[in-house]
């Protein structure tokens, strides 16, 4: 047990990384593969829970890979990292179970399992690393593995392979562009500061800012990270990959993309911009706020025009991540105008929003998979009346739609409430007014979609619905996530409390810096 606790951070990366080759080696034994991967994935979920509780009770955990302190690479699990890891392991586990019946067996046996594990490893690595170059490395792992997963085949595929290829192309190219920018930024940062350890850089940037000797290119480097993380999060004008990729990916991968991967961008903003470039908040705050507001409007407006259920959800993700970024922008502005408590409050609200959107949207994407399975199409105009033939998906989609629309008693309501309340309290009237307007749009497109699919009657020219309903392996994860959506709407206190602490640590990173740099010599 003590071994486990001591090596928790690295295990969360190492286990899935090791599972990848194991999955290739066992590809001729699909049953064994499934059992092994399920055990690993549930174990990972348990470990992430352990990490979260140990960080919550015992403070920030720093794990040195080697014994080189800031000169080598450290893994740092603070509350932000641990929660994000928990989110990843949870949604990852649900997605995996769902995949067993959703992904075509040949695709599943050969590469899906190992790619999936690599994706989980990459994402955990991103959340846990304390080194900015290492962050880049794990970004690449995550990017390539998720990119390769987009082309995995579903059992009842409704997407043409050429569409998948085109979407993958857009995904890889636009994200590679972001990677290049990241490389430029990291290299220039290293050349100027002489360190790759994020805590170390944070101190040095603060020293430069206090001395007033920060050269202009440091500002530019900081701002370039907006491209890096904004691109992952799909914020305008870096969102172009998302509406093509989310619909074409297999549903469990869409769930991961929307539930976790776009949240990596949000995590990056908190970790890199807020912690490392804290003195730049007055510069990047307004930029992020502007982008966020455009993103909210653009995503919500485009979502109304969609007929494809997954494309609707994809645009909705764009719009919703805008809400999260709106909080970041407002938080940075509040901080730079001296409202430290305000900044904490707003960032905490953003984090609540992030978690709730992750749960609800990944659940919705899994549900959309069930719907596609049942209806044999993604076009909502060709559906209708499914409330009678597939009531389980109907309930699940309704729960998700209510949460995304911010209707109580779902988690999305608590998220909107926290964000709007915090924003108004610190006088962000116009952003909140815009956000509110598009919240009505959100209600409209979510419920319109729901009604198109489940109410009314199906036009007979599209034939009968398939008789096989979603299997237990598909319905189980959906209902578990749906239950969480509801629980986070009613028993929201733990989430609010954790978010408050996370935000406090983001705004005042001194505990993080101390934990990393003040090391006990072993």
């Amino acid at each position, binding site marked *: 047990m003590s071994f486990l606790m001591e090596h928790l951070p690295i295990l969360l990366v190492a286990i899935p*990384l090791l599972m*990848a080759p194991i999955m290739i080696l066992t590809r001729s034994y699909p049953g064994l593969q499934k059992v092994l991967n399920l055990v690993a994935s549930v174990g990972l979920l348990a470990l992430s829970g352990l990490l979260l509780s140990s960080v919550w009770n015992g403070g920030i955990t720093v794990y040195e*890979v*080697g*014994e*080189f302190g800031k*000169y*080598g*690479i450290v893994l740092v699990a603070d509350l932000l990292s641990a929660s994000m890891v928990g989110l990843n392991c949870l949604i990852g586990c649900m997605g995996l179970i769902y995949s067993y019946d959703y992904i075509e067996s040949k*695709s599943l046996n*050969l590469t899906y399992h190992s790619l999936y594990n*690599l994706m989980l490893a990459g994402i955990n*690595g991103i959340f846990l690393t304390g080194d900015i170059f*290492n962050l880049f490395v794990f970004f690449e*792992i995550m990017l*390539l*593995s998720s990119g*390769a997963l987009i082309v995995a*085949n579903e059992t009842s595929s409704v997407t043409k*392979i050429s569409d998948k*290829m*085109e979407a993958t192309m*857009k995904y890889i190219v636009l994200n590679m562009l972001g990677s290049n920018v990241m490389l430029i930024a990291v*290299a*220039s940062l290293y*050349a*100027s500061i*002489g360190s790759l350890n994020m805590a170390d850089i944070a101190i*040095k940037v603060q020293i*430069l800012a206090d001395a007033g000797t920060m050269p*202009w*290119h440091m500002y530019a480097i900081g*701002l*370039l990270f907006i*491209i890096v993380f904004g691109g992952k999060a799909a914020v305008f*004008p870096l969102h*172009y990959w998302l509406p093509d990729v989310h619909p074409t990916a297999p549903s469990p991968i869409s769930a991961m993309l929307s539930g976790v991967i776009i949240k990596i961008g949000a995590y990056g903003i908190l970790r890199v911009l807020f912690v490392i470039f804290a003195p730049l908040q007055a*510069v990047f705050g307004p*930029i992020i706020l502007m982008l966020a507001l455009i993103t909210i409007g653009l995503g919500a407006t*485009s979502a*109304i*025009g*969609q007929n494809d259920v997954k494309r609707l959800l994809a*645009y909705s993700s764009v719009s919703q991540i805008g809400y999260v970024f709106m909080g970041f922008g407002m938080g940075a502005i509040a901080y730079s105008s001296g409202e430290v408590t305000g900044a904490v409050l707003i960032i905490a609200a953003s984090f609540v929003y992030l978690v709730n959107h992750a749960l609800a949207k990944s659940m919705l994407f899994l549900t959309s998979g069930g719907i596609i399975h049942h209806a044999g199409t993604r076009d909502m105009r060709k559906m209708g009346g499914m409330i009678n033939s597939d009531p389980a998906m109907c309930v699940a989609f309704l729960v998700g739609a*209510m949460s995304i629309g911010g*209707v*109580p*008693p779902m988690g999305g309501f608590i998220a909107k*409430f*926290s964000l709007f*309340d915090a924003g*108004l*309290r610190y006088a962000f009237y116009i952003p909140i007014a815009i956000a*509110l307007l598009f919240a009505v749009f959100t209600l409209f497109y979510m*419920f319109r979609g729901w*009604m198109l699919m489940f*109410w*009314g009657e199906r036009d007979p020219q599209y034939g009968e619905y398939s008789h096989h309903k979603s299997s237990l392996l598909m319905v189980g994860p959906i209902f578990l996530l749906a239950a969480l959506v509801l629980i986070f709407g009613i028993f*929201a*206190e733990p989430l609010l409390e954790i978010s408050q602490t996370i935000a406090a640590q983001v705004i005042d990173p001194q505990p993080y810096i101390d934990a990393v740099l003040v090391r006990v010599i072993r």
Partner: protein
Amino acid sequence: MDPFNAIVIAVFLPFILAWTLPVLYSVFKQRIGWIAAGIAFTCFVLNAQVIPYAMAGTPVQGSWVWLPTAGLSFDIYGDGMAALLALIVSGVGVIIMSYSNGYMSTKEDLPRYYQWLLLFMGAMLGIAYTDNTIQMFIFWELTSITSFMLIGYWRERPESVYGATKAFLITAGGGLLMFAGFLMLRVVTGTYGISEVAQSQELLATLHGSEFYVAVLILVFLGAASKSAQGPFYIWLPNAMEAPTPVSAFLHSATMVKAGVYLVARMHPILSGTPEWLILVSGTGMITMVMAGFMAFRQTDIKAILAYSTISQLAYLMTMYGYSTAEHPGLGFAAATFHLLNHSTFKATLFLVAGIVAHEATTRDIRKLGGLRKEMPKTFIVAVIAAASMAGVPPLNGFLSKEMFYETSVEIGHLVGGPWVYIFPVVAVAGGVFTLMYSIRLIDGIFLGERTHDPDVPHHVHEAPWVMLAPAVFLVGLIIFFGLYPKFPIDYLIQPAYSGLVPHAETLHIKHWHGFTLPFIMTVVTFVTGILLYKFYDTLAAMQNSFNAKLPWISVNYWYDAIVNNAKGICKKFANVTQPGPLGGYIKIVQLFMIFLVAWPLYYLGVGAASILPAGMNFASEPYEIVLYALIIVSALGAAIIPRYLPAVLSLSAVGFLVSLLYMYLKAPDLAMTQVCVETLSTIIFILVIIKIPQKFKEPMPAGKVMVNLLISGAVAFSVFAIMVNAGIGIIAPFESLSHYFMEYSLQLTGGLNVVNVIVVDFRGYDTIGEISVLSLAALGVYNLILSRADSGSAAEGGEEE
């Protein structure tokens, strides 16, 4: 029972038991309606526990911890007003759920029907007893959702879907505005509490002195108006009539639409007493009252007439709650509260009658009905009494509250002064006249006159079964009882309700006969004008129809349809413009954004053009370096300009291989080796992907476009160059690079002599594992691509792909 517990149980019992109905249905089958009615009755009894406390002036208060971090708790405040609404909700609930046993066919999906009815009832009880604004919003939106589900009960019918969407968009959207108002209220007062603000002179003074007072008032009122179908928001209520008739009677006349009015009453102590309140609340009320009453004329569906009548009657309530001045803040409060109760009795009865008529005569079209008094004498009597109460015929309860309305209208006119002395009473009388006219029409159209022989109406229409008639008779009993003995409802319900909210309230004295006062004269005028004008009822309706046909844009529905029905098309176009598809445009936008991000600090810090690049740069280079650079530039240009994909990709990979040469020249063979590996792999991947994309020639680019592209990429290149060059000057003093540490400790800590090796395998070995994973991943990806190509190849043979 402890009254706090009674309230909590009353609120949550329907929520919990609603989920047991599907199980109970398997045992009790179609008798499940009686169980639902029993649950409602239990709630009614629990609600009645609050009355003694309300009468004693000691409201039931209590709260549970909920979200302490957000400063939210679950707060209960049971005063007279809350008890009144709760009793109306649960009482009408009992009546409606009993009536539904006769109305709903046993083939219907009964568990779902009663489930949503119970959930709705729970949400309404929540609204009644809530003592903080956020909790109010939560239950508020729950009523919107449940109402949406019930309007769309027959979900396969397009009209139901249309009506449900409209109702949901307007009420839930309005709810969000109200929510914003509540949050603004929180900003000003620092609390979510309702009674806390209402009872604190200090907070009230802060609020009324605040610049946000008007914003709070408008936002909260918009929420209330959308729920109660006031002003332009009225349009959802007529379409909500697609719901089963008992639902319309319950939600859309007796209870849910009262939520908006109730909110206005609840916020009365907090927001009233200003000219803004009077103008907004009464102004909206008066306009709605007259317009909706008038528009009822052209309706032919009984339920539509009742819907417009409901809008108009709710507007009475709004108007009266709006009657408030600084000296006399609660002028119309008591009258409004009494009318709220009375309206629930007579309007619910009329809806039940409409349900009976539709059930027995199979149509609700008033043009096809007529002369049913002989076949349905009991229903006829019930309908006449309810309609008479609505029209204000003495001695029924509607007459009493109508006279109070006239009386307060006269008073407010005097308080405001000027021409308003006449305007208030005249508008009130106009509202009364229209009410009288459509009330006559209802009775005349359905029961009086000649029996029609329309093919839609059966030859023999039967009297309603007792299951449906009894609830209506019970309500009529209440109408008469409240009319003859107003002291009973006043003492037990109305007095506790208003005295808790309006400070220094006087005791209501209700008499049937006040002498020849002004209100009495107004009543006489109402009856005379109404009966005289009734002759022109059809002419007026025809005028309205032709007016609407000529000017379709005059109707709010026209704009709703124009916006909502076209929303999808417009947004589709918007999405196609903002997301056109080709990758090239996206890359260009990202690049432009990158240029902006690099340029912004220059502007922000005011860096001069001269200091963008560091001073003293060294441009000297050897000839073979220049050749290498030139080759790199040429192949990069080639990748951009060559119009076919494959050669362009090859040209791009040439850049990579040339860079590896550069590494070799710079004496880094290990780097060069890595670069070659990576470049080879990525070229393979690229080609595999590109081969799937149609291999046609790219469109020849116009020269202008080439220039623009060149300019953008040039600017990006310069931005990157500027950053790298600035960073390349060296580490900013006083910091130092990690290399000293590596040099010093590599042998000591790791035993390695080659520092680069040590960095790769020891200091940053974790990165190396990651890089290895990336490489294996790329290999896996290639494998996957080859695999999927093989698959699609076989599919193409099967003739599925083009």
